[in-house]
C-alpha cells in the first residue's frame, strides 16, 4: 500500500504532543498522520480498549510499526481530535447488547440470540467460554468468530434478559 508522501519517517515513534503532529482523513478515506518529517497512512489501535478506551492510542503504519502514541487526544488540535474521534468509533466498535432473547446449549457450543443497538444478532460461544467482567463493571462476550458483545449493565436489563443471564453473570 502506498503512503501519501515519500518523505522518510522517523526511526522511533513520536509522542503525539508535538505541535507539528496532526491527523487528517485523506480524500481516499485513509487516516493520515502528519509529523514534522512527513505523512503516513495509519491505523488506530487502542492500548486499553476497556481500562481507558479514549487514552493511550497507538497509531500504526501498514506494517504495524508504531508511528505515534497519543496519550491524551486533548493534546491534539481540534481538527485532529475530531478525526481521531471518528477513527476511534470504528476501531473501538463492538456490538452493544440491549436485550438477551435466548441462550441455548448444543453439543459443543452455546447459542445466543440478542438484540443489540446495531440490530438483532445470533452468535455462538464455546461451552467453556464465559462473559468477561470488565473494569467498567460491564461484561464482554467473545463469540467463536472473534466478534465482541458488550453488556453495559446486566443488572439493569429487562427481567427476561436478567433471568437468562443469571447463570452467566454475578
Amino acid at each position, binding site marked *: 500500500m502506498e503512503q501519501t508522501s515519500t518523505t522518510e519517517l522517523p526511526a522511533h515513534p513520536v509522542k503525539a504532543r508535538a505541535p507539528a503532529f496532526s491527523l487528517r482523513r485523506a480524500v*481516499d478515506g485513509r*487516516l493520515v498522520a502528519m509529523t514534522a518529517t512527513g505523512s503516513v497512512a495509519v*491505523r488506530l489501535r*487502542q492500548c486499553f480498549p476497556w481500562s481507558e478506551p479514549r487514552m493511550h492510542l497507538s497509531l500504526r503504519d501498514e506494517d504495524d510499526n508504531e508511528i505515534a502514541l497519543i496519550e491524551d487526544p486533548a493534546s491534539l488540535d481540534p481538527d485532529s481530535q475530531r478525526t481521531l474521534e471518528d477513527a476511534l468509533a470504528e*476501531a473501538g466498535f463492538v456490538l452493544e447488547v440491549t436485550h438477551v432473547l435466548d441462550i441455548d446449549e448444543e453439543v459443543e457450543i452455546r447459542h445466543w440470540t440478542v438484540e443489540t443497538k446495531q440490530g*438483532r444478532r445470533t452468535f*455462538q460461544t*464455546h461451552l467453556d467460554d464465559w462473559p468477561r467482567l470488565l473494569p467498567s463493571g460491564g461484561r464482554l462476550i467473545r463469540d467463536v468468530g472473534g466478534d465482541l458483545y458488550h453488556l453495559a449493565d446486566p443488572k439493569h436489563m429487562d427481567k427476561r434478559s436478567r433471568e437468562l443471564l443469571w*447463570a*452467566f453473570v454475578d
Partner: protein
Amino acid sequence: MDRQIISRYLGQPSELPAAVRSRIEESFGGEPVQLYGLADLDHTLQLKESWLALGPSHVALARPDAKGSWHVRAVERSHIRAVQDAPGLSANTLSLLGAPNDPPLAVVRYTQRQRGAFENIRFVLEEALHGRTVTSDDADRVYAEAVARPVRDAQALVANRRTAVILRLLAYLKPYRTQLTLGFSAAAVITLVSLVPPYLAGYVIDQVVRPAQTGGLDRTVASRIAWMAVSAMAVLFVVREAAALVRLRLMSVLGELVARDLRAELYEHIQRLSLAFFSRKKTGSLITRVTADTDRLWDFLAFGVVDVSLSVVMLLGLSVVLLVLDWRLGLVMTVPVPLFIYAIYWHGESLQRLFIRAWRKWSRVTDVLSDTIPGIRVVKAFNQEGREIVRFDERNDDVTDEFNRIHRTWTTFWPALMFFVHATTVLVWMFALPRLLGEGSALSAGVFVSFLLYATMFINPIEMIGQMARTMNRATSSAHRVFEVLDSKPEVQDGPAPVRLTPVQGRVTFENVTFAYDGVRQVLRSISFDVAPGELIGLVGPSGGGKSTVVNLIARFYDVSGGSVKIDGVDVRALDTGHYREQLGMVLQDPYLFHGTVLENIRYGLPDASLGEAIAAAKAANAHDFICKLGQGYDTMVGERGHTLSGGERQRVSIARAILHNPRILILDEATSSVDTETEREIQEALERLIAGRTVFAIAHRLSTLRRASRLFVLEDGKLAESGTHRELLGKHDGIYRRLYELQLQLQ
C-alpha cells in the same frame, strides 16, 4: 455442511442471493462472480446487509436502497491501485483505492464473522496488483467455508433432531439382537411379575382371610389356599430376581460391547483422519470422546433404554390396573401423575441452570490452579503467595456457595414432591375409608390393600420418566460428539487403485505446485523442482516462507491445490499412502517418544527388528552409550513423551528409530535446533550416517548445518526464490541466502 451451519446458526444467507447475483453479473457484462463476501455493517455501523463481489475484470458493491431493491455499482479491477484493510475490535473496514487523491472506489465494513471471506477477496486483489492471477472455481463454497469455519471448528456438525441421533445410536445394538431381546424379555417379566403380588395380597384378604374369619370358608381349605398363595408369591419373587439377574447381566455386557465397538470404530477413524482435523480439535477433547462419552453411552444403552421404556409400560400398566380395580380411587391416584412427571422435569431444568452457574465458578477455581501450580516459581519469585491464597479462597468460597445453593434446591424439592405423593395416598384413604365403612359404593379391604400396594409402585417410574429428558439429552450430546468425529472425512484419501512403489527410489518432483490451507490464500506459489535420488536438499528462508508446507506435501499430509508432487515420476495422490509412508522417515525438532521402553521406541516403525539391529541403529545414532548408562538399559521406561530423557537424548533415540526404519526419503525438520553445541555435534554425526544413500530434505535455521547440502532451496513468500549450492548462493551479491548467512555470522 458449511451452508447448513450458516443458515441454521448464523442467521445470514448461506450464499449470494440469486437476485443480487444476477444484478451483479449483469453489471459485470455477463461475467461470473468469482468471490464474494457479506458486508454486514453499514457506514453508521448498524447491522445491514450489502455484498462485495469479485469478477474476472470487475468488482461490484451491491447495497439495498430504501425500498429494498438492490443498487449495484461495479468498477473495473484495473482501476484499483491499492487495497486497504483496517481491523478493529469487531468492525473491519476494507477500502479499494483508486487514483491518488480520488475518493475510494469502494468501502465496506463488516464484523469479524465475515473476515475470512473478505481476506480471500483482499488476497486475490493484492495478488492481482502484483501481476498474479488467482481464481476461485466455486465462489459459493469458498464463501460458505470462510464464514462457517469458526463454528465448524468449534462443532463440526449441525446437531440432528434428538430422535435421529438416538435411532442412529440404537443401530449399534443390531449385532446384539439376541441379547437385547432376552434383556428386554427379562425386564418385561420383572414388570409383569411385580404386578402380581399386590393382586395376590388383595385376593388372599378378600377371598381367604375374611371368609375364614367370618366362617364363610373352612379353615383347613382357607389355610391351604393361603399357603398356596404364599408359595406362589415366593415363586414369583424367585422368578423376578432371576429375571433381574438375566437382565442386569445381559444389558450391562451388551452396553459394554456396544461401547467397545464405538471406541474401536472411533479410534480407527481417528487414525485415518488427516492432520488438518487434529489442528482443529484439542487432544483432550478427542480423548474424552473415546473414553467418557462412550462410557456415558454404555450407561444409556445398558440401562437407560430399557429403564425408560419399561417405566412407561409400568406406569401405563399400573394406571390400567388401578382403574380396573376401582375407577374412582384409580382416578384420584392417576390424575396427579402427569403433574409429578412435569415437576421432576422442571426441577431437572432448574438444576441445569444452577449447574451452569456452578460450573462457571468452578472454572474460576481451576483457572487459579492451572495458573499458579505450573507457574509456582514466578509466584514465589514475586512473593505473591499471599495474594494467590486470597484469590483462591475467594473463588473457593464462591463455588461452595453455588454448590450449597444446588443442595438447598434438590433437598427441598424431593421431600416436597414426596409430600405431594403421600398427600395423594392420604386422599385415597379419605375417599376409601367411608366406602370401607359401608357408605356409598362398596370397597373391599382386599381391593384397598392391593390398591395401596400398587400405589407405592408409582414412584420409581415417575422418577424415571421425569428424568428421561436429561438422560436423553446427555446421551444425545455424547452421541453427537462421537458422531462428529465419525462423520469427519479425511482430506487425504487413496484412489481406487493405489500404486505401490517397491522400493521408492527417492526422486521427488514438484511441478508448478500451489497450495493453500484454506483453498484461497496460497502459501506455496507455482513451485517447481526436481530432486534426484540421494540428494541432500536444504530448505531455508524466513519463517512463513513455505518450508514446512513443502515437507508436509512430500509426506502427503495434505494434497496440493494446483500442480503435482511426484515420487519417482508417479503423482503422490496415486500412491498407496500407507505403503509410501513406510519408506519415508521424519526427524522433528521436538521428537515424540511414546510411553514405553527405549527399545520399543527404537523399534516403533519396525517391531520385528532384532535386538542386534536395534543396537546397531542406536550406535549409528550416537545413542548406544547413553542408553547403556540408563538404569535398565534398552528396557528403561522413557515415561510419557519420553520426559525422563533430555532433549538431545530423545533426539538421538528418534534418529535411531529413523535409521532402523531405513526410509528412502528422509525429512529433517530443525532436528538440531533445540540442543546445546556438544549435543548438536553428536546429533550431526548421527545424522550424517542417517542421510547416507537417501533423498533428504532438511529444514534448518542455522545455515551452517546445511553447508554439505547438494543444493539449497530458498523459499520466501511461498516461492522458490533461489536454488543452488552453498557456494553458488553465497556468490549472489543481492541474494536472500547470502543476506541471511551474513546476518547469522554477525550474530555469532
